[in-house]
């Protein structure tokens, strides 16, 4: 929440922009509710945490730096496969698996960032799509490594801290994925309120103006792309570890499209948009998928059209606009 008025010194003002809002505290406290209120839904809750983290990583490049990516699942999948393979061949300890997933995804992100940073608009969208598809094809072909369409076999994750097993009840899974989400979220929040976060917003707000103030936009883009890739890789690693399986779905186009929808639904550029969007998307899909799958597609289609036409800043954007209007009554 910002403090306005010129009595406040500029430094104090900028510091106030990063203060924790009470709603944020309520939000995070409510993520603990499923343990008591929905104990049978903990695996779904765990999935939502993973998707939320994935959507958060996309928010950093899309909501803050303005890079539209149709291939972000590449990093999710790389993280998942790396963590899975690491547990199969080396060590099943979960936290080290996270590091491996992050590192692999960061490496791929860094390499592709050199390409990504050079292009804009449709060309960029197509290149992200193409790179994502390339990786998916490669993973499919390399079935000796990935298990192909059967999925990766032999993922063996050790119990957390040696005690808590990742079982079907999902308690450990949800606690683990929620904790990872929270920690990474804190880091992302810090980044957004740093001078680098300001630079990213500058890139999104006016790409042309950035070089005119001496900003090396391409370097900034490469940096955030790598960071976002690492975060997506961590999300992928978590899903591999909590479900003890990795399939080709983790890097296919459908997943890239789904995370984009989740983020836009919640509202990009607001840090919490991806989290809210992921929750709504997955809960709705869980409830509606019992009925025919086409039903789901229909409603997602309607939703997308509605969001673009009526809620351009997603649900959170709509809520904050509503709040602003209520305040000025």
């Amino acid at each position, binding site marked *: 929440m910002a403090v306005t008025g010129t009595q406040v010194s500029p430094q104090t003002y900028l510091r106030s922009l990063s203060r924790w809002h009470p709603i944020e505290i309520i939000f995070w406290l409510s993520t603990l509710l499923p343990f008591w209120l929905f104990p049978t839904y903990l695996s779904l809750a765990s999935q939502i945490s993973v998707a939320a983290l994935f959507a958060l990583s996309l928010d950093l490049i899309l909501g803050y730096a303005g890079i539209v990516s149709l291939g972000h699942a590449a990093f999710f999948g790389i993280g998942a496969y790396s963590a899975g393979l690491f547990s199969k061949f080396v060590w099943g300890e979960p936290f080290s698996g996270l590091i491996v997933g992050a590192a692999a995804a960061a490496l791929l992100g860094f390499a592709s960032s050199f390409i990504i940073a*050079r*292009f804009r608009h*449709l*060309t960029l*969208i197509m290149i992200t799509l193409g790179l994502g598809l390339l990786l998916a*094809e490669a993973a499919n072909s390399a079935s000796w490594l990935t298990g192909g369409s059967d999925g990766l076999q032999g993922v063996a994750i050790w119990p957390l801290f040696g005690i808590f097993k990742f079982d079907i009840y999902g308690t450990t899974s949800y606690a683990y994925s929620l904790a990872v989400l929270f920690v990474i979220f804190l880091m992302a929040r810090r980044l957004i309120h740093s001078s680098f976060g300001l630079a990213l917003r500058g890139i999104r707000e006016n790409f042309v103006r950035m070089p005119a103030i001496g900003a090396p936009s391409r370097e900034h883009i490469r940096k955030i792309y790598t960071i976002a890739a690492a975060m997506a890789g961590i999300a992928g690693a978590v899903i591999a570890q909590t479900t003890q399986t990795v399939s080709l779905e983790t890097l296919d186009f459908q997943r890239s499209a789904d995370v984009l929808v989740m983020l836009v639904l919640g509202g990009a550029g607001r840090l919490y948009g991806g989290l809210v969007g992921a929750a709504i998307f997955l809960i709705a899909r869980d409830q509606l998928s019992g009925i025919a799958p*086409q039903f789901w597609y229909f409603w997602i289609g309607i939703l*997308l059209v509605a969001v*673009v036409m009526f809620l351009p800043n997603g649900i959170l954007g709509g809520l904050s606009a509503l709040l602003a209007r209520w305040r000025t009554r």
Partner: protein
Amino acid sequence: MLPPVIGVLFDGIAYGMLLFLLSVGLSVTLGLMNFVNLAHCAFAMLGGYVTVVLMNSLHWPFFATLPAAFAAAALASVVVERILFRRLYRASDLDQVLLTIGIAFISVAVAAWFFGTTQQPIDMPAYMRGSFNFLGLNIAVYRLFLVGVGIAVLLALIAAVDKTRFGAQVRAAVDNQRMARGLGIDVDRTFAITFALGSGLAGLGGALAIEIFGLDPNFAFTYLVYVLIIVSVGGLGSIFGSFAAACLIGISDIAVKYYVPELGAFLIYLVMVVVLMWRPAGLFGRR
């Protein structure tokens, strides 16, 4: 005796012709208005289903359904353009992508609702099926027909763009929209007509594709990727670019399927990424 590689080439070109019909409309409308329409293949799907309904329920002959497929897709596109797309010409890339993907999702769901999720078979007239022998190669009659249609459409489009006043208006608007408006060209009307024509061609492509690709509700997405690749590689706003890219992609895909099937679509995606990095506006693109 022609070597089998010529047969592969011919099959690839026939495949490319189909892709050309599906892509050229998107290429021109993208070049004209920079409007990213990912629902383009949904119009193709509509054309396909129109043909299916006309042939299977109303027993129309195949060739009679083709103009109907064209017209239905064109008409549908006019309606959608007027109600929705028109408001988003100045919107961001992302908004256009999301809106048109939403339309595509809706069309997939609607198609599944009415026609189910299985493939729709149609009965080709007997003289269209089968193949004949040409210098030792097995040439499928239908593929030859496709090549003919493709070339005819290409020539008709190039003639229309080069020789008619409307074509000149399209070229002017693709080249420099602001200047075209300044000269008094009604760019919005030009775009609406071009959009209808492009969608109509997609509908025609969808109808013709039933025999080669089959038709199910996922058609709207299955070929969208290839269409996007052709449009990006060929260059936005370039008719000849679409033609060249479609042939390139068609031949590559068939050749890979024939000679190195393990590669899958890898080569196509690689070609796209490499071409876009080398020429971001596509091989024949302007911007």
